[in-house]
């Protein structure tokens, strides 16, 4: 039995977590959450997760089960993103202190409480797969996961996945893509507060100053160039209090980031056939949840539209916490200006 593939894509903090939860609550769909976020260590190791050429099953499993430094540093210091679901239960197979594999941070606990057992079963199976391209492995893995739950459709959703949409489209050329769009000003405000995006932004800066990723290399030749405010975030100095309180960014920085991600991501989306792409507004999902969610289900699984279920699932919809209009005038203007290129790209590409 072949399973159907779909992705929810968007910029960071576009509201896709809510949509992922709604899909998870909808019968017959396997909701694969934060899979690519975690195996790319918060988007900082994307090329490593997509190696070129054939890869053995064991090497592919190493990508999925890697204990990656940034997410685990955050976990160990008690500043993990709220999307991380693995808990340090007494009977847990892994400990925050020694590291939790990428697949267990969110993806498997999002699907089942018995995630450690599922992880073990997958390890046994995936490691034995013959060599294939990473795209084939990813397809096979998602199908395996989907069948595990007796479903015929899986939907992957990772925060900020527009950044890798070109890779997803290359690996899954027949999948369906739901592009969730949210007002960039609120996305930026929310990214500014989000610990995962904070870590990614700090990493960008440290990588450029040091010439290496300090979480992957102990080369510190250029460490004296590091500005005072970044020293606390080197893995050897990691200070969770400073991380939690870090405030040397502004929403407008994330506004620029949002614009950049949209401009680049839309280049790939433009190439997709209309029947494979659905663009949905997060604001519509909040305002008209039933109508919007029904549109999404019709697009993903037209033979599974069930209005009773849709109404039940839409109870999960709450109110957003970010409101750019509450910002002081100057910040509001800067934020609006930083999001302008993104809005223009949307206007030009989304009809």
């Amino acid at each position, binding site marked *: 039995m072949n399973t159907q593939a779909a992705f929810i894509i968007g910029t960071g903090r576009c509201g896709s977590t809510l949509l992922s939860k709604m899909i998870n609550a909808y019968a017959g769909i396997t909701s694969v959450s934060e899979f690519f976020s975690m195996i790319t260590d918060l988007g900082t190791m994307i090329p490593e997760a997509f190696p070129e050429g054939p890869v053995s099953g064991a090497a592919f499993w190493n990508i999925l089960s890697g204990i990656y430094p940034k997410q685990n540093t955050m976990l160990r210091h008690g500043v993990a993103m709220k999307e991380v679901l693995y808990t340090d239960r007494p009977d847990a197979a892994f400990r925050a202190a020694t590291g939790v594999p990428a697949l267990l941070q969110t993806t498997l606990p999002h699907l089942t409480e018995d995630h450690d057992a599922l992880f073990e079963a997958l390890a046994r199976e995936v490691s034995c797969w013959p060599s294939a391209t990473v795209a084939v492995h990813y397809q096979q893995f998602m199908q395996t996961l989907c069948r595990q739950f007796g479903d015929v459709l899986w939907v992957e959703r990772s925060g900020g996945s527009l950044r890798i949409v070109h890779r997803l489209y290359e690996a899954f050329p027949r999948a369906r893509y739901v592009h969730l769009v949210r007002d960039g000003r609120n996305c930026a405000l929310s990214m500014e507060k989000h610990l995962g995006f904070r870590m990614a932004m700090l990493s960008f800066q440290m990588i450029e100053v040091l*010439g290496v990723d300090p979480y992957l290399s102990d080369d510190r030749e250029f460490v*004296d*160039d590091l500005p005072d405010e970044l020293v606390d975030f080197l893995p050897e100095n990691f200070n969770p209090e400073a991380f939690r309180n870090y405030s040397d960014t502004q929403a407008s920085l994330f506004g620029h980031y949002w614009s*950049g991600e949209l401009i680049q991501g839309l280049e790939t989306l433009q190439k997709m056939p209309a029947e494979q792409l659905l663009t949905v507004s997060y604001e519509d999902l909040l305002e008209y949840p039933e109508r919007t969610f029904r549109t999404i289900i019709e697009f993903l699984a037209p033979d599974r539209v069930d209005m009773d279920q849709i109404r039940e699932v839409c109870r999960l919809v709450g109110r957003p916490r970010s409101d750019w209009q509450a910002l002081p005038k100057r910040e509001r203007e800067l934020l609006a200006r930083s999001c302008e*290129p993104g809005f223009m790209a949307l206007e030009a590409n989304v009809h």
Partner: protein
Amino acid sequence: MTQSHFITGATGFVGSYVLIELLKQTNDTIYCLVRPKEDQAPEARIFGLLDKLIPAYQENPALLAAARRRVRIVAGDLSESVLEIAPRIESPINCFWHVAASLNYEERFADQIFETNVMGTHYALRLAKKLQTQYFNHFSTAYVVGKQQGIMREEVVRHTESNNAYERSKVTSELEVLSATGMQTRIFRPSIVIGHSLTHEAFNFSGMYGFLRRLVQFRGMMERIQTGYLDRNPIRMKMDPQVPLNLVPVDQVAQEAVQIGTTAAPQRIFNLTNKKVLTVGETIGIMFDIAGVSQPEIVRDAADFNWIDEKFNEKMEFYNSYLVGRKVFDRRNTDAALQRASDHDQYAITRDRLVYKSSWYLNKLLSKRVRIPVSR
């Protein structure tokens, strides 16, 4: 008559060239105080460095043999008791060259800067006295003048508003040197030291190189935020584009210092600065070009900055203090002591030379950095 010299900081950028100049300009014995390193003996540090630098600077290869004959290594540290160091040196010493310094400037290094530059000078003076030194030659910076503008005379700086911990440390250490008794003291004040005038070779990459490096880092950060951002949005900088920016090649600094320091010049403070330099606008323009960043937009007021401009200018704060305000360095003492005009065409900073020096460094930097693609 053969004399003797003592150098601190001989493994550093300026200090190593002072050592080479002493080998060239004198036949004297030269003691070098060198800290042992875990992986390298002091002898290997000095002679290994000279083996590399003398060909790189296209100096006479015979200097290598001269160095092995005339250089005496003293393993140790200035903070050690003089009773530990002094017995290993034949006194009296004619010239003590105190070149060792910390070039850091960030506040997080303030204690270390003070320890190296202020206490280090204090220990050096103590040792120099014990060694019955005749001339104590101290290396400072032309930028001890801090935020002053106008003509920077070769005079004592007592009260000035410094830009950072580094400048403060140099003001304090100069005052201690000038108040020392029992030996003649001199202060050498180089401006922003860059690579060799002809070969462009350098091995300390603060100053101009640091600016270029930070520009490259900033470009990379912005590429990770939004591809092409800096092409569409030129950075705004506050600077005075028409004022001169004084860059001086390391060989000029060492040549002039050793020539002055080994004579009985009566003056005490010397600006080792360049007479032929480019303006701030020209220099910054070259740096941006080389780094592949669109030319900055010059503004008079920081109120015109957006948030990214503010962040950029914060990262460049150390360098920005050199880009605002006219400073013209008077060299009357230096020229009088040299008793001839230096060959300033050889040392002149021209557009072509600066482009070459900057490109030389950028290539070196990029060859060392692992290319980490923007993660997509």
